[in-house]
C-alpha cells in the first residue's frame, strides 16, 4: 500500500470505535478503554490492546473483530498485540460507556481513584429503580468482569461491572 493512501489516525480510531465489545456489544472497544495505540511498522498496522481481566476469554474474538474492521477500512496487514502493563482499570472507561451500561441495566463500575476496597464498601445503586437498598449476591457473575446484586426495593437481580 502506498503511504499516502493510508487511513489517518483519526480514521483508524473512528473505525476502531465501531468494533463492539463481544460480551457487551452496547459499548465499543475504544470507549471501554482497551485500545492503547495504532502504529505503523513499515506496511503493517500494529494495534495494541490491554485486556480488561487477565483471563478475559473474549480476547480471541476481539483480535479477530479488530482485524476484520480494519481490513474493511483498507488496511491489508494488521497485527493485534496484547500489552498487560500498565494494567487496564475501569477508570479508563469513558463516561459515554458508563451511561450505556447503566441504560442497559448493567450497573457501571463506580469510580474508585485507585482505592477499589473502599469503593466496594459503598452501597450500589440499582440500575433499574435507582435504589441504594441493594445486597451483594455473588462476587462473581456471568463474565469475569461482573458481580451480582439484588435490589431489595424492586426485587430485581442485576449485575455490576466490577471496579478494577
Amino acid at each position, binding site marked *: 500500500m502506498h503511504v499516502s493512501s493510508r487511513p489517518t489516525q483519526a480514521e483508524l480510531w473512528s473505525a476502531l470505535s465501531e468494533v463492539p465489545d463481544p460480551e457487551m456489544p452496547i459499548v465499543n472497544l475504544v470507549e471501554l478503554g482497551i485500545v492503547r495505540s495504532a502504529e505503523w511498522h513499515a506496511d503493517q498496522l500494529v494495534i495494541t490492546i490491554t485486556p480488561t481481566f487477565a483471563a478475559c476469554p473474549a480476547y480471541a474474538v476481539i483480535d479477530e473483530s479488530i482485524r476484520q474492521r480494519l481490513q474493511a477500512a483498507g488496511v491489508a496487514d494488521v497485527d493485534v498485540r496484547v500489552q498487560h*502493563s500498565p*494494567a487496564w*482499570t475501569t477508570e479508563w472507561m469513558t463516561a459515554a460507556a458508563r451511561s450505556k451500561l447503566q441504560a442497559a441495566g448493567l450497573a457501571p463500575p463506580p469510580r474508585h481513584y485507585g482505592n477499589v476496597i473502599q469503593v466496594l464498601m459503598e452501597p450500589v445503586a440499582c440500575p433499574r429503580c435507582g435504589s441504594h437498598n441493594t445486597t451483594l449476591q455473588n*462476587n462473581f457473575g456471568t463474565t*469475569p468482569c461482573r458481580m451480582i446484586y439484588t435490589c431489595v426495593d424492586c426485587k430485581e437481580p442485576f449485575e455490576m461491572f466490577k471496579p478494577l
Partner: protein
Amino acid sequence: MEQTHQYALSGYLIALADDELILGHRVSEWTGHAPILEEDIAFANLALDEIGHAKLWYELAADLLGEDKYRYPDQLVYFREPAQFRNLQLVELPKGDWAYSTLRQYLFDAFETLRLGALSQSPYTPLAEIAARIRTEELYHLRHSQAWIPRLALGTEGSAHRMQAALDTLWPYAQALAAPLPGEQDLHAAGIVPSSAALFARWRAEVEQFLTGAGLQVNLHFPISDLSRISHSQHFPALIHDLQTVARLDPEATW
C-alpha cells in the same frame, strides 16, 4: 536487570505460575458440581482467573528468557513432565469437599495477596505492574472465601466439622508457603522480590486471627516432612495426565 537475575526471576515466575495453574485446574473440577448454582459460577470464575494469572507469569518468564511468549507458556503447561513442575503440594491435592476447596483457596489467596502487594513494589517494573493487576483481581477471591468460611465454620454441626477437618488436613501443607521460591535468595538480596519467610509470618498472624474468629482451632503443631517444590504428592501425575492428554495427542495442532 542483570542476566543472572533475569534467569533467576524466570524460574521464580514459573514456580508462581505453576501454583496458579494447578490450583486453577483443581478449582475448575467444581464446574458443574458445586453445591449451588451461585458457587458453580464463582468457582468457574476463580479457575479462569487463576489460569489467566498463570499465563501472565509464564509470558513474563518467556520475555526474560527470550522465548516466544505466545508459544512458550503452552510448552511449559502441556509438555513438561510432572517432576518438572514447581508448584506447592498444597494446590495439587484433590479437591476434596467444598469446605476443603474453599479453605484451600483462602489459605493460598491470603498469602498470594501479601506476596503480590510486595511484588507490586518491585523496582522491576513489568513485574510490579502485573502483580498490581493480579492483586486487584485477587481481592474479589478473598472477599468470596472470607464470606464463606465463617458461614460454614459457624453454621451447622456438619458444616463446622467439615471446615475443621479441612483445616486439620491443609494446615501442614500450607506451612510450605514459608519456603523460598526458586531463585528467591538472590532476587531478594537484590531487592527484586520479597522474602517468603517474612511474608509467611504476616500471613500466619492474619490467617490465625481470621480462622480463630470463625471458631476454628488452629493446630500449631504441624508435622511437615518436605517443604520443597521438587517433590509432588501421589495425586499429581494423574492431574498432569488430565491436563495434558489432549495437547499431547497432536502437539502440532492449531486451535
